[in-house]
């Protein structure tokens, strides 16, 4: 790689200006491969954000109906927001409200298992738990090699949780939950921590690891002939994991040669804990913003809370003097208005995230223009896994036509149909995902 004198690398820029600028916009003035990129080569990104327990949808006769009904009133371009989502009013041109979408298989699910299938549309039902790959991972498989992190799974719960109430939205192609990160500092270090001191040693270690994997594969192939069909399925799962891991190591090797993006940590509340709710939620959004802006990853899932009662996130509404979220969703000791106030708080924080993406210049537009954001939940209201409350935001340079409240007939259109369109918008050519029966082209036009 040759560097032309007019091209500066990030470190030179940083030293030159004396103080560390807030995360440098992606390739604003320079390109990591030595060639300035044209707009068409700017990255496309996707973030899927989930909140638990549905939203306040007071019936018409309830006094809170007018103000605290999450879904807007009206349809098409002519719709009005309630207090629940009014924070999104300034972003009207960048968002679409959706109703009537859901996963038909999930409609039969009870309780709080619905978050497991939010992004998978998996055939998880009362009879069997056979989850499948999540949409984000299909995309990451395809475009993940381009970035330091193939994808990023965030969750306020962290880890994988339990079957039927996992703490993550992301699932491997075998339907295994992918552990999510809930600790802001650890996540920051993973993406931006500057610890490349022993680069040579790190390279050697990776080489050694890769060599170990080769040896294991060599030695375990012969095992296959000794197993019956059922056991062979298990061995195949192992061998597939091994190959995935090998690819990950190769990718890490190539990333070792490139410096991490620099983000000034003092601009972030890295020690925000789940006890300081707003700080924590916004810090998580900040991390997502920096991850996108620095092109550290292009695929993020984020679980803002865990379904049901008893989790730490369930207590978040107490920060506003409200009952726990799950209790609110059953209106135990709280009204629709109380529940709506929590929805409002969440909308405000979501608006904060949109705003950050919108204000970050990239190419001839903003980071938001090339970020496809889905925000929603897989129950509309108490345990009713239909008519998911959903918002699509951003991605206007990716073919999204915004500004409307779209209503769909749940007997005709499935959420998976929209996922197919989203994947295509991410340049991941897809005909079918999960139980999809088509595409949802009315929101997307080819850019």
């Amino acid at each position, binding site marked *: 790689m040759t560097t032309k004198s007019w091209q500066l690398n990030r470190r030179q820029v940083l030293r030159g200006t004396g103080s560390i600028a807030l995360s440098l916009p992606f390739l604003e003035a320079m390109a990591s491969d030595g060639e300035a990129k044209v707009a068409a080569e700017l990255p496309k990104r996707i973030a899927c954000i989930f909140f638990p327990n549905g939203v306040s949808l007071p019936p018409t006769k309830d006094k809170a109906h007018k103000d605290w009904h999450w879904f807007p009133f009206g349809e098409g371009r002519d719709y009005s927001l309630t207090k629940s989502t009014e924070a999104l009013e300034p972003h009207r041109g960048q968002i679409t409200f959706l109703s009537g979408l859901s996963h038909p298989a999930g*409609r*039969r*699910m*009870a*309780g*709080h298992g619905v978050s497991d299938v939010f992004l998978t549309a998996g055939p*998880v*039902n*009362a*009879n*069997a738990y056979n989850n499948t790959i999540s949409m984000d991972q299909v995309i990451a498989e395809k475009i993940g090699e381009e970035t330091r992190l193939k994808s990023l799974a965030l969750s306020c719960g962290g*880890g994988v949780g*339990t*079957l*039927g109430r996992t703490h993550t939205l992301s699932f491997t192609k*075998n*339907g*295994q*939950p*992918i552990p999510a990160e809930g600790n802001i*500092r650890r996540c920051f270090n993973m993406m931006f921590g*500057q*610890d490349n001191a*022993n680069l040579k040693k790190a390279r050697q270690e990776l080489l*050694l690891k890769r*060599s*170990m994997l080769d040896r*294991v594969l060599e*030695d*375990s192939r012969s*095992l296959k*002939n*000794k*197993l*019956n069909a*059922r*056991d062979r399925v*298990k061995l195949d*799962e*192992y061998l597939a*994991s*091994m190959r995935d*891991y090998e690819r*990950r190591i190769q990718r890490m090797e190539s990333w070792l040669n490139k410096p991490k993006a620099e983000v000034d*940590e003092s601009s972030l509340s890295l020690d925000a804990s789940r006890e300081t709710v707003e700080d924590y939620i916004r810090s998580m959004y900040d991390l997502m913003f920096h991850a996108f802006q620095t092109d550290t990853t292009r695929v993020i899932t984020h679980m803002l809370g865990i379904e*049901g*009662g*008893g*989790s730490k996130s*369930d*207590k978040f509404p107490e920060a506003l003097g409200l009952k726990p979220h799950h*209790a609110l969703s*059953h*209106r*135990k000791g709280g009204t629709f208005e109380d529940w709506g106030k929590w929805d409002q708080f969440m909308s405000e924080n979501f608006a904060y995230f949109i705003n950050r993406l919108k204000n970050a210049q990239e190419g001839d537009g903003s980071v938001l223009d090339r970020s496809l954001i889905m925000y929603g939940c897989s129950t509309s209201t*108490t*345990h*009713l*896994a239909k008519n998911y409350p959903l918002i699509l935001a951003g991605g206007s340079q990716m073919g999204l036509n915004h500004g409307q409240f779209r209503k769909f007939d749940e*007997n005709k259109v499935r959420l998976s149909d929209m996922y197919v369109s989203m994947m295509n918008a991410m340049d991941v050519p897809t005909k079918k995902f999960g139980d999809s029966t088509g595409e949802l082209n009315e929101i997307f036009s080819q850019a």
Partner: protein
Amino acid sequence: MSPFSKFFTLAIFCLVGSVCAQSNAVEKDFEAKIKPLLRSHCIRCHGEKKQEGDLRIDQLDPDLVKGQSADFWHEVLNQINEGRMPPEGERQLSTKQLNTITAWLEIELKKAAAHRNSTGGRQLMRRMSRYEFQYTLQDLLGIALDYSDRVPTDLTGEDGLQTNARRLGMSQIQLASYLEVVQLALDEAIPDGPEKVHKGEVKSPRPANVRKQPRHKGFKGKARFIAPSPGLTKSNFIHDLPRKATFDERPFAGRFRIRVRCIATASSDGRLPELMVQVGHRASGDYDPKKIMGRKILKASDKEQIVDFIGNIEDFPLGKKDGYYNGSGSHNVTHLSAYIWNTTQAKSKITKKSQLDEIDEPLIEVKAVEFEGPLLEGYPSQIAKDLLPEFEADADEATMARTALERFIPRAYRRQVTDEEISHAVKTFNDFREFTGDFKAAMRSTMAMLLISPKFIYLVEPSPDDSRARKLNSFELATRLSYFLWGSMPDDELRALATSGELLNPDVLKAQVTRMRNDARFKRFVKHFSAQWLGLDAMDHVAVNPKVHPNFSDDIRENLRAETLAFGEHVFVNDLSCRNFIQSDFAMLNQVVAQHYGIPDVYGHEFRPVSLKPNEHRGGVLTQGSFSIIGSDGTDSNPIYRGVWLRKRLFADPPPPPPPGAPPLNKEDPDLSRLSLKQQIEAHRKAATCARCHNQIDPWGVAFENYDATGRWRTQQAQVMFDATSKLPDGEVVAGMAGLKKYLLEKRSSTLAEALTRRMSAYALGRELEFSDIEMVKTLASRFEKSGFKASHLIEGIVTSDAFLTK
């Protein structure tokens, strides 16, 4: 809200004996009882002429097991249960008809589920669970540190068990964590050389100004003592500040010890102080990372006492060797600080203005804090030292490697190995030796390679032809046995008996079971099986409401959890009757738990059996705080949760999950809000669709009503009288917990025996139990019951059963 939602995991139902009718009988049943009901109530809208909701019921396959319609039938069940079908204005089902059709659907759905999850009654190649992986590394490598936090958690099924091969999956993240852990473990077992040992001492450490308060002038007189801290960030009281000792010289890896020399005084009512140590470093500005190293309750004494905490440097937020902390950028910090707190729960109201002399609380005076690390005593262990045997100085490296690997691989793979396997490893060693330029590093890498092999990670029982079951060979049997009873690999004795083949002799096998039960490693089985069987992890999902239970703390929660585990250990290790799980004349208590229960005169942190008086209302697991918490919403008890828990755990008979749209108890309903919870639940059962299931659930839970959400006994609270009298599903009326326990032991003895048998068998076999296992379960359960509920009989029965002895 849906009452069971917290229990409901979309899991695999267990097969129940009674549902396994022959399929032609099922067909007859359907034609005779179900079809006429469908025809009269459903087909008009969901049939040939009309297909409301795109559903044709007349075309659904009545064979749920083999047919493709089970999911649609499930939707039918949900619609009926939610009262949406038949819709208003249509002919309704009578209560009896409703029960007929829903009962049929539930039974057939369970069968379909069991069929889908079937492994043909045979074991699958099973990955070690997270804890088995850790224990195996301990026994194989002789390591002492716990690495299991670095491995993802395993999925738990509805039966609570974590040894089920179907659920123990694999992913690249799982694999990456295994490689990381085996490398750390091998670094620990085969260190490069003796490290320099660092020692340090700080006498009378000064208070650390952790809350940015004005500095206190002097800590003389009684002010030398640390008072209980109500919280690590909240208080402004100056005397509860921790004492801080900083050590500039320290190692950057390995085990270390913080020794606190202190004097502890009790409060006048005998409460003892709890000392907590945090370890971390001061980085910059507000960033002050610390992590708890441990807590201990101290004995009161005028004499100086020594309290030791042992930890692992890598587990604490400390600077790195090259002067960089991996989390905070460019601060050159290499020191280690220990913060000593008094974290006793205070009784007095402590405010900013309180005086130390005026509060009557347990106190701690820290005389000195010492650091030592790395700890070399007994370390590496003999097992670890034996990994690389001692050789003559001029020994050839290749020979040394071969000798070590010839010993290591059979232990790691738990069987005899082939020459090819040895030479593959030796060849790998030679390549790694060249690459790393170091003998030990090459040995570690070779061993790491072997330990991420499927031959190590999975319990492999090669069987190319699965048309017929085959007997296990002696090594496979040794392995199954040791993973069942020790959660780990076979030891030398088992391996010797496997090599000689003697283990296949039933008498030898039984003798080994007895030996293994008396070995300290049996406690691992006891801990994990008890927790899984009783669903103890669900405690983590309940946040106790501090406004309603101000005296409750995370510390009490952890001690209640420990109580349940100590109880299981006491019963299983001493081979007491498992009827003790229902009712015992002792409780396993320590100071924290005894105080919580209001039982006097128990001091100290250790759990020990304490004889109970009837008016203390304790004994067995049903009265343990862990399960009161699990059966609550964190604010109040919930009889429905408790009923579900009892049926799921003690009867191994989980009620069906609620339909998706099950309405919550409407507490705002003015008619309901005046009623007690028990009455509310009764009112709720008046609706036929609710009653069908809840009649079989709620009465069990009502009998727990004298225990609040944290397990404390209550009879009255404000205006509410707690009435735990309950009419059980079979019509028997029991007076509260004592009555329930008596009833369970007298009338439900065989249900209890069968349930525990099923859970333990499934745990040992690593799979779901199926139709073909019913006979085994019945035989084992009746033997177990006749033995007086001795776990030793049950374990021996399982181990000598055909299911356990064959692949």
